[in-house]
């Protein structure tokens, strides 16, 4: 029989009932303070996001209005149109950057997943020489901030002709995502009993076929969660994008949006609208796999 927490521990509620009136009033005051503090924190945290949303739908003169207009501003969708449509009526530069972001983030995530998932499987299933050291080395590549290596990588890329190319960005993002994919996926693979593969091998499959046909389908939720994390990293990445790309044809969205600020005038409405458009895909993906994201983050936290 399942016992809910409430049933199992009635004691604290009883104690509150018996507590003297003074202490109970203290409890109420404490609650009020808690709620006030949490609301203040929430407003402070969410204000930039709300302000960005508001700015993206305000008429330009309301954007610059002093004092700021919180509610009674004139509504417009012109900024969103500007994100996608250029002044000459064709495609805007920004929309090109968004497309680049989709290609680079998508391709690097696929590459990292294709390389990382089999590696994670191998690390989970096989006894290897110095396995722990190998895994630690793989993880250690994530210890250092990207900006530390950006100059050497710039020089290497220049020699290899990868500078200012989407392929270059795809490779560097995949290189950063593979270690992460291996570590997160290893946790998921560990959870799938190796016996499925053993049984399949006795039934006539090779080791790789057994992995593909039996273990891989059970890993799909894990792969989805891992891929979303990798996608978020590639999608948001700024440092490499701004150092390694220069032309409009290759530039991804983060440096492109940053490029809108500066010069003599700043079109804040356009900046806000492009930021909203930029944030949306990640939010949608994260929402779709939210259950698995939690599983991925807490995996191995509790030993069964």
């Amino acid at each position: 029989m399942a016992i809910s927490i409430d049933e199992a521990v009635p004691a604290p509620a009883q104690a509150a009932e018996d507590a003297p009136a003074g202490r109970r009033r203290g409890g109420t005051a404490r609650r009020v303070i808690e709620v006030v503090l949490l609301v203040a924190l929430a407003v402070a945290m969410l204000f930039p996001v709300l302000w960005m949303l508001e700015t993206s739908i305000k008429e330009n003169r309301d954007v610059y209005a002093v004092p700021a207009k919180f509610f009674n501003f004139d509504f417009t969708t012109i900024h969103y149109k500007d994100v996608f449509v250029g002044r000459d009526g064709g495609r805007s530069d920004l929309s090109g950057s968004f497309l680049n972001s989709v290609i680079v983030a998508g391709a690097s995530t696929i590459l990292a997943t294709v390389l990382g998932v089999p590696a994670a499987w191998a690390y989970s299933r096989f006894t290897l020489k110095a396995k722990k050291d190998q895994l630690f080395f793989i993880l250690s590549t994530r210890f250092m901030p990207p900006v530390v290596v950006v100059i050497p990588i710039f020089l290497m890329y220049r020699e290899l002709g990868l500078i200012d190319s989407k392929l270059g960005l795809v490779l560097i993002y995949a290189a950063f995502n593979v270690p992460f994919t291996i570590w997160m996926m290893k946790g998921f693979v560990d959870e799938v009993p190796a016996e499925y593969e053993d049984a399949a091998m006795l039934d006539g499959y090779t080791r790789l076929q057994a992995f593909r046909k039996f273990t891989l389908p059970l890993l799909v939720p894990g792969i989805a969660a891992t891929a979303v994390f990798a996608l978020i990293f590639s999608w948001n990445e700024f440092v490499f994008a701004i150092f390694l790309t220069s032309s409009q044809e290759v530039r991804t969205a983060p440096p492109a949006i940053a490029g809108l600020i500066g010069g003599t005038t700043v079109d804040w409405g356009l900046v806000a609208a492009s930021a909203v458009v930029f944030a949306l895909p990640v939010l949608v993906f994260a929402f779709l796999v939210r259950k698995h994201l939690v599983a991925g983050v807490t995996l191995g936290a509790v030993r069964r």
Partner: protein
Amino acid sequence: MAGIEVTNLHKRYPDGTVAVEQVDLSIKEGELFVMLGPSGCGKTTTLRAMAGLERQTSGDIRIGTTLVNDLPPAERDIAMVFQFYALYPHLRTRDNLAFPLRAEGLPEKEVRERVAEASRMMQLDALLDRRPHRLSGGEQQRVALARALVRRPQAFLMDEPLTNLDAELRADTRTEIKHLQAQLGTTMVYVTHDQVEAMSLGHRIAILNKGRVEQVGTPLEVYDRPASLFCASFIGSPPMNLIEVEVSEGALRGPGGLVLPPPPGLPRDRTLVAGVRPEALEVTNAGTEGSVAARVVSAEALGDEIIYVLDHGGGRDLRVRMPPTARFATDDSVGLRHAGGTPPVYDLSTEELVA
């Protein structure tokens, strides 16, 4: 059906761990052979090498007359049952049973016949349309057994198949496995760490320790004359009393004045240890002829028997198995005497049986 020959098996993993030091086994056709040992003794690795799931570092494995060292698992014509059942989670019972047959490419008509036969044998007819997550542990293990026997393999390999079942179900399934093996007459290699399982199932038992075979024998041989101190302490519950003895005046004399009959051919000038089963000792009233004085440290009444722990001034407490009619209380002064045949005697330094 076929026997299995394992010669000079050695398995060392790339990280340097040696799972199997050296194992030689000769399993006869139609035999239910149990490999018994504590965890890490190499029994599962040996079984997995037989199945082809691990490649041994050196040594040969023959199934029947075929050398199978380099054959993939599927071509060895064996079936395996795992501790975690390993039923394919996305398939119904029916399709789980049919899976190995379809993988072999048998015609669908024969697949259906064989599945029906196995299902009747293991009484699975009511469960055929369920998926594994809707089966209890015992039901899952019965499906796993059925999946092994639809293939009509040369040999069954069982890797602790009962460990995950609760006690009552374990006893039932144990009987079922024994019955099934007798009925089919197929060679079966059964790995377990549970000595009760080993004793009740096996035609012969191999006791493994630290990657080596310590003893191979029938359950009674293994029980009556353990080949080493390790086997002596591993088989039997409560375990054998190990008593340090000296030979003098034609008898084995232990500490506290306990006298045991000596086996012939005892070596001299070595420290000897006699192995005395709890049922080969007897608690008597104090002062009974031939007994030594002792004190009852504790009494465990198990219903069908009572286990007394006695202190007879010999350093180590002794365990004595008595019928439930015995009436001695804790702290009683009692007598203790030997009531069995000649005990096996071990050399303390080599830990091996000497007489």
